[in-house]
C-alpha cells in the first residue's frame, strides 16, 4: 500500500513537472514522435502488404497444387528449366484419369490479346483458356450470368467470362451479358462477369479482375498452338493433406512422362505455400530494415530524453533534497523521475500514433488497403514507455543517489 501511494505521488509530480515545462517537453518528444510514427507506419505498411498479398494469392486456393513446366519462383540455374517439355492436353487427360480421387484437374493456357467492344479497345488483356472446373480450384464465382460449361469446352464455343475490371473499362454502364466483343480478331459472346476480387495486382502479380476466361479449346482453336504450355491445377481430395497428395501427383506425372527412378523431374509442382514462404522472407527483410531505421530514431529520441532528464534532475536538486529530508526513500525519488521520463515518452508516442493514423489513411487512399490494428497501438505504447524508462534510468539513479545534505545546500 505504501508503495502504491509513493507511485501515485510520483505520477502527480511527473505531470506537474511536464506541465511546468511544456515547450521543452514538446521539443524533447519530437524524436520519440518520429520514432513511433516510423514504427507504426512500418508495421502498418507491412501488414497492408501482407494482406494484399494474401488476397491476391488466396484465389489460388490453399488445397490446390499447380503442375507447371517451371517453378513459380526460380532460384538457382534458370537454364535447367529452359529445355523442359511443355505440358500438353494429352498429359492433362492422362493425369485426370490417373488422379481419380482429385476433386478437380483443370488445365489453363493463356495468351495476351487486345479486346474490343464497340469503340473501346483494351490492349494486352490476359486471356485465360480453361474449363468449367476452374471455379472449383479458385475462390471466385460469377457475379452475373454463368461460368463456362462443359459444353462450351466440348464444342469450342466462342464465349467468355470477363473480370469485374474488364467490365468497368470496356462496357462502362452497358449490360455486358450476351453482348459480342472482340478478342483478337474473333468475336466472343459474354456469358458471365466474375465478382470483384479486389486485389489490384500485387506488385506485378496477376490482377484477377482484369482477366477474361474462355474455353481452353476455343483458345487453342482461335489463337493456335496445340502445343501451347499449360498449367494444371489439381485440387486435393477432401480431408487429405496437400503434402501427401503432392507425392501422388509427382508419382503419376513421372509415370506419364515415363521417367526412370534416376531421372530428375522435368516438371514442377507449385503451391501457394512456396509463394507465401518467399513473400515472408522478403517481407521479413523489409520489416527488419524498417525496424532498424526506426530503432535508430527512437534511440536518438531516447538520448534527447536522457539529456532533458539530466537537466530536470539538476534543476530540482534542492527539491530532491527536501523530499529526502522529509523521508522520501531512494526508490520514491527513482520512481518520480522514471515516471516523468516515461510519461514524456508516452505522450510522444501518443502524438506519434495520431500522426501515424494520418499517414496510414494516406497509404490506404493512395497505395493499398492499410489500417492500424489494436496490436500495433499496444506495441507502440509499450515501446514508448520502455524508451522512457530506459532513457530516464541514469538520470533517475543520479537523483536517487543524491546526498540530502548537499542537495539541500544546492542553489
Amino acid at each position: 500500500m505504501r508503495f502504491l501511494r509513493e507511485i501515485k505521488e510520483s505520477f502527480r509530480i511527473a505531470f506537474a513537472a511536464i506541465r511546468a515545462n511544456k515547450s521543452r517537453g514538446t521539443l524533447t518528444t519530437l524524436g520519440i514522435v518520429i520514432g513511433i510514427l516510423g514504427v507504426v507506419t512500418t508495421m502498418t505498411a507491412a501488414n497492408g502488404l501482407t494482406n494484399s498479398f494474401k488476397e491476391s494469392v488466396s484465389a489460388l486456393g490453399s488445397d490446390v497444387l499447380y503442375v507447371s513446366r517451371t517453378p513459380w519462383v526460380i532460384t538457382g540455374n534458370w537454364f535447367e528449366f529452359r529445355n523442359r517439355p511443355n505440358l500438353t492436353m494429352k498429359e492433362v487427360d492422362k493425369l485426370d484419369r490417373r488422379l481419380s480421387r482429385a476433386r478437380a484437374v483443370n488445365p489453363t493456357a493463356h495468351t495476351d490479346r487486345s479486346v474490343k467492344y464497340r469503340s473501346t479497345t483494351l490492349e494486352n488483356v490476359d486471356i485465360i483458356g480453361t474449363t468449367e472446373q476452374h471455379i472449383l480450384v479458385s475462390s471466385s464465382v460469377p457475379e452475373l450470368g454463368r461460368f463456362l460449361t462443359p459444353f462450351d469446352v466440348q464444342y469450342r464455343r466462342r464465349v467468355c467470362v470477363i473480370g469485374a475490371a474488364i467490365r468497368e473499362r470496356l462496357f462502362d454502364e452497358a449490360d455486358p451479358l450476351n453482348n459480342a466483343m472482340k478478342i483478337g480478331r474473333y468475336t466472343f459472346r459474354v456469358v458471365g462477369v466474375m465478382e470483384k476480387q479486389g486485389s489490384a495486382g500485387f506488385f506485378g502479380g496477376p490482377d484477377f479482375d482484369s482477366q477474361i476466361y474462355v474455353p481452353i479449346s476455343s483458345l487453342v482453336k482461335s489463337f493456335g498452338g496445340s502445343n501451347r504450355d499449360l498449367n494444371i491445377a489439381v485440387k486435393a481430395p477432401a480431408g487429405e493433406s496437400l503434402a501427401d497428395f503432392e507425392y501422388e501427383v509427382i508419382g503419376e506425372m513421372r509415370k506419364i512422362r515415363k521417367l526412370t527412378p534416376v531421372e530428375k523431374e522435368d516438371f514442377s509442382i507449385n503451391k501457394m505455400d512456396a509463394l507465401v514462404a518467399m513473400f515472408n522472407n522478403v517481407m521479413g527483410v523489409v520489416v527488419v530494415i524498417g525496424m532498424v531505421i526506426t530503432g535508430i530514431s527512437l534511440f536518438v529520441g531516447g538520448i534527447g530524453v536522457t539529456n532533458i532528464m539530466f537537466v530536470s534532475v539538476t534543476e530540482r536538486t534542492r527539491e530532491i533534497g527536501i523530499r529526502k529530508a522529509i523521508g522520501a526513500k531512494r526508490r520514491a525519488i527513482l520512481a518520480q523521475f522514471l515516471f516523468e521520463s516515461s510519461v514524456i515518452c508516452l505522450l510522444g508516442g501518443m502524438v506519434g500514433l495520431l500522426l501515424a493514423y494520418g499517414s496510414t489513411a494516406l497509404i490506404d487512399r493512395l497505395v493499398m488497403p492499410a489500417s492500424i490494428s489494436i496490436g500495433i497501438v499496444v506495441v507502440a505504447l509499450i515501446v514508448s514507455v520502455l524508451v522512457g524508462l530506459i532513457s530516464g534510468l541514469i538520470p533517475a539513479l543520479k537523483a536517487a543517489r543524491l546526498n540530502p545534505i548537499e542537495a539541500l545546500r544546492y542553489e
Partner: protein
Amino acid sequence: MTVEVRDIVKTYAMGEVEVPALKGVSFDILEKEYVAIMGPSGSGKSTMMNLLGCLDVPSSGTYRLDGHDVGELTEDRLAEIRNSKVGFVFQTFNLIPRSDVFHNVELPLIYGGVTRAKRKKLTEEAIERVGLTDRMRHKPNELSGGQRQRVAIARALVNRPSMILADEPTGNLDSATGDEIMSIFDHLNDQGNTILLVTHETSMAQHARRIIRLRDGMVESDELTAPRLAKEA
C-alpha cells in the same frame, strides 16, 4: 530519553586532509525539552544539526534517537526515521514550489504511507495549528515569508515527530515576523513537543529553556535558562 549523543566525532575528507568538524560531543535531550544549539560559524553547529536530523551518520560515537542507533542504519532506514521521528524547519523554508500548501504539508504522510482519509485529517489539523486554514490551496509564492515558514512548521508537525529540528528558522524573516514564528515554537513546546533550535542569535536562543554552546567541535557550555521542562514551570 529522546536524544542520546555519546562521544560523537565527525570528520570530513577534504581531498587528502581529514577535517574534524566534531571532536567528541556528548549530551542528552529529554522528551518535551526546548533546546537551543548555538555557536559561531565553524563550530560544528551545522554538522551537529545534520547528525541530529539523521541526514548524516557520525564517524564514531553513538547517536540514539528514540532508542534507534542511527549510526547503524541504511540510507533508506534513515529516510524512514527522518520521516517518522524528525520534523525539519529550515532557514529558507524549503517548500516545494509547484505544490500548494496542503500538498506540501501532506507530503511526509505520503512518504510515510498514510491512507488518504487519515492524511486529509492530519494535514488539515496541522495547517490549522499554524493558522493557515484559509491559505490551504495557495502556492508558496503566493505567501509571505512568515506564512511560508508556518507552512514548513505545519509540515514538520504533521507526522507527530519525536522532535522538531529548526535550523535558523527566523534567519530569513524580519524581526516582527521572527518573533511571531518563535512564539509558535514556544507554544508547541508548551503543548509537549520536543524542540531543537539551531541558531547563532542570542535573542532567539533565549526562547529555549536550555542552551548548548559549541565551539571548535566541542561542547563549550550546556546551561539551563529556565526550568528544564515546561510543565515544571
